[in-house]
């Protein structure tokens, strides 16, 4: 049975078969014609008495020729293959996609040298078919099978070498699976294989790198630090000797400030400094060297998400304690209108967007000294130790739907639930008068976790600075999202639900437009392993074994069916021209 839905051409062609039959049936329909007399038709007069007769459908030879030609075309459209003995093997090329391949020696990068080698290989002994696999952080097959160099050349622009890592082993495994152990595998990279000797007779490893000196940024961050932004830059010297480079730092539109950085062989240096909060973009640059991609970083201001909190506790002592703790976290917004979190004695719903913290002290007379059961995977419990803490609470069980986060035995002390609108409702079973929790670091940590969790659920980007290859999370409002990459590539996500993970395939400034708001985040190439070019080398490891056996390989048989159909159509033409076959 041919899977026709897989082959729409075959389905269309097959649909013509009933059409052809219909044409012939209609053509063979008896046309009514009145004649003067049947006396001249006596040779064929049949009695109509006794009811109508069923006549055998009279089809000429042409019909069968056309039907056969159609069926051959249907078969051809399904792309039939058969096994034929082959001497040449298909080729699967594993391309190192990491950015170390961009390292330039004498003006030529390892990527360019590898590409030239591949072209030369195609000129000398072109394989019957070629498949390309990009070895980035994950191996990825490029397009369909290429038949010649021009088709390969069309695929190569996708080999951009921007990945922070090259999973060549995974790519080889994928190549072996795709090639069914029959294809030759060619690895094009800039370093030698992990093992000196390659035992796979179908694998050839070619490296086109050079051990080059390189200064690089290996870490960079910009975080909120009170009223300022704290910046960290880590510069490494991946050279065999002490070297000096020049560091230029520019903030916003201010003039760049330069300084010399001297580092010993394979040493690194961290620079930590503060800049005002309002500084738009910090740009740092090192002197040009063999790998330009790790010589520049751009840091955008950190995202300061603050939460509007309304404290609606009737107990003044509790209210004061809550306000004091919230202020200490630094995550509370100055205003409390349209609150995003409401802290109250009971479980009230303050707004469509508001979370609630129900802090009840009623009947909370049991003081628990532990052991406490903490769900450490929960965002509220991050960093909460509760060692030596006395926690007084009411003896109760959790309400239906509530997920306990902290328990004392079977008594929930802190629990959370989510309603149908996606809002979170937290229940704090805590009486500070009989407890010591509010005097321990766990207390501000707990509130910091609450506000941090709430802030993380507000729409917008999770980070403003990211490393190359990592994902940046975007909390969406349901509106269409447009992402413009540094090279101008635009990606539109018409409908997004909740959260969108944005890929960072290249360094630079990304622009994210959601609804009326537009935000930016910066991606920097910060990978020490890729910046370290000392292990790069040139050479060949492994060699494809000579083919001695004859292998049977799937070969397209479309041309055979096409030729047969053509022959039939020629015969059809001859019969039509000769006036034969109509009967």
């Amino acid at each position, binding site marked *: 049975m041919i899977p026709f839905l897989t082959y729409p051409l075959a389905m269309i062609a097959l649909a013509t078969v009933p059409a052809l039959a219909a044409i012939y049936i209609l053509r063979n329909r*008896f046309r009514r014609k009145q004649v003067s007399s049947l006396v001249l038709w006596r040779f064929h007069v049949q009695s109509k008495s006794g009811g109508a007769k069923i006549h055998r459908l009279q089809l000429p030879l042409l019909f069968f020729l056309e039907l056969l030609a159609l069926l051959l075309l249907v078969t051809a459209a399904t792309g039939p293959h058969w096994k034929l003995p082959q001497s040449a093997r298909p080729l699967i090329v594993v391309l190192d996609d990491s950015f170390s391949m961009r390292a330039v020696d004498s003006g030529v990068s390892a990527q360019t040298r590898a590409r030239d080698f591949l072209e030369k290989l195609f000129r000398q002994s072109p394989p019957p078919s070629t498949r390309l696999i990009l070895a980035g952080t994950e191996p990825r097959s490029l397009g369909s099978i290429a038949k010649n160099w021009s088709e390969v050349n069309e695929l190569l622009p996708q080999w951009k070498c921007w990945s922070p890592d090259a999973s060549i082993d995974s790519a080889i495994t994928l190549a072996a699976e795709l090639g069914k152990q029959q294809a030759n595998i060619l690895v094009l990279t800039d370093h030698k294989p992990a093992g000196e000797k390659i035992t796979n007779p179908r694998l050839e490893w070619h490296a086109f790198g050079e051990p080059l000196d390189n200064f690089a940024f290996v870490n960079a961050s910009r975080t909120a630090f009170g009223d300022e932004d704290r910046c960290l830059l880590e510069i490494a010297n991946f050279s065999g000797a002490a070297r000096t480079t020049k560091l230029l730092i520019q903030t916003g539109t201010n003039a760049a400030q330069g300084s010399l950085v001297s580092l010993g062989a394979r040493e690194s240096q961290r620079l930590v400094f503060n800049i005002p909060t309002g500084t738009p973009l910090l740009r740092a640059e090192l002197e040009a060297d063999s790998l330009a991609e790790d010589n520049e970083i751009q840091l955008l201001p950190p995202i300061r998400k603050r939460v509007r909190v309304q404290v609606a506790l009737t107990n003044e002592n509790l209210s004061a304690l809550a306000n004091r703790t919230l202020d200490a976290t630094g995550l509370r917004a100055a205003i409390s209108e349209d609150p995003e979190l409401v802290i109250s004695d009971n479980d009230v719903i303050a707004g469509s967007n508001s979370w609630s913290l129900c802090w009840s002290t009623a009947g909370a007379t049991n003081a628990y000294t532990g052991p406490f059961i903490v769900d450490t995977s929960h965002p509220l419990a991050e960093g909460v130790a509760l060692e030596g803490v006395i926690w007084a609470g009411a003896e109760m069980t959790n309400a239906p739907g509530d997920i306990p986060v902290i328990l004392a035995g079977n008594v929930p002390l802190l629990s959370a639930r989510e309603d149908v609108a996606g809002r979170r409702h937290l229940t704090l079973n805590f009486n500070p008068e009989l407890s010591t929790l509010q005097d321990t670091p766990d207390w501000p940590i707990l509130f910091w976790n609450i506000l941090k969790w709430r802030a993380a659920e507000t729409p917008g980007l999770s980070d403003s600075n990211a490393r190359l290859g990592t994902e940046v999370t975007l909390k969406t409002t349901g509106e269409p999202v447009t992402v413009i990459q540094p090279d101008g590539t635009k990606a539109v996500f018409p409908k997004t639900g909740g959260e969108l993970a944005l890929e960072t395939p290249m360094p630079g400034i990304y622009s994210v437009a959601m609804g009326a708001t537009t935000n930016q985040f910066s991606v920097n190439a910060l990978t020490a392993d890729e910046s370290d070019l000392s292990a790069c080398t040139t050479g060949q490891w492994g060699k494809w074994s000579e083919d001695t056996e004859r292998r049977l390989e799937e070969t397209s048989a479309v041309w055979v069916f096409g030729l047969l159909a053509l022959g039939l159509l020629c015969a059809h033409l001859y019969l039509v021209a000769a006036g034969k076959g109509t009967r």
Partner: protein
Amino acid sequence: MRDELRQALRDGEHLGARYALQIPQVAASGWTGSRSGRRAGSSIDFQDYREYQPGDDLRFIDWGIYARTDRLTVKLFREEVVPHLDLVLDGSRSMNLEKSAKAGAAAQLAALLATAATNAQCTQAVWFSGEGFQRLANDTLTPSAWDKLELDSKRTPERSFEIMPPKFRRLAVRVFVSDLLWPGEPLQILRRLRDGAAALFVVQLLARDDATPPEHGNLRVVDSETGDESEIYIDSAIAKQYADNLAQLQQSWADACRQCGAQMTTIIAEDLENSLGELESIQLLAPA
């Protein structure tokens, strides 16, 4: 009567104005008229003498001869007669074949012959077959005044003869217009038509579809008279067989005509005006 038939009669009348019916000498017999007959009559043209026989008109006794020879001798004068045309039309449905010019051509041909007969100072009677043979209404008038010409009989002319034969005038010129497409022995009807006639002409009028079998393909042929049907695949062999059957039928009629002393010709209805030469060649018509 259908308008197209009436128009065909008018066209035939117009066409017949150029022709006159050729009257054979044997047909010079009939009612007293303006044309010289082959017998003695009462015209002023002297023909011969003969001995008086009882019953002869005493006015024609030549008294001078009686005075000289004492024998009663009468003078004979050439008879003046009006020759007659009996036009016999096949009134069966096959003469009204759908999608053909056959009915119109039959009417046109009848009108033409009648007009040619008038031009030849002949009287005419038009008979058409149906439930027996009947005179066409107003057939003694000009063709455009004819009426009730309906070609819708299920009977063949042969069958109509058996039901009620026409009352032909003796020594009249008879013209039989038909497609002759019915099974049977031609000689039988031809003898009846020829009996007492001065001359008999048979004009086979065929539609082009009758003469030429249709193109290749499947056909359900329906007999226009009986309604019988037959499904046939037409190919070159069948077409040839059809042509052979037609030729055989025509040959049988031609042989029968030869036996009876009749003249026969075939005319294609769609090509009537160009086929009038055929009627001249069998000496039925002559230019007026």
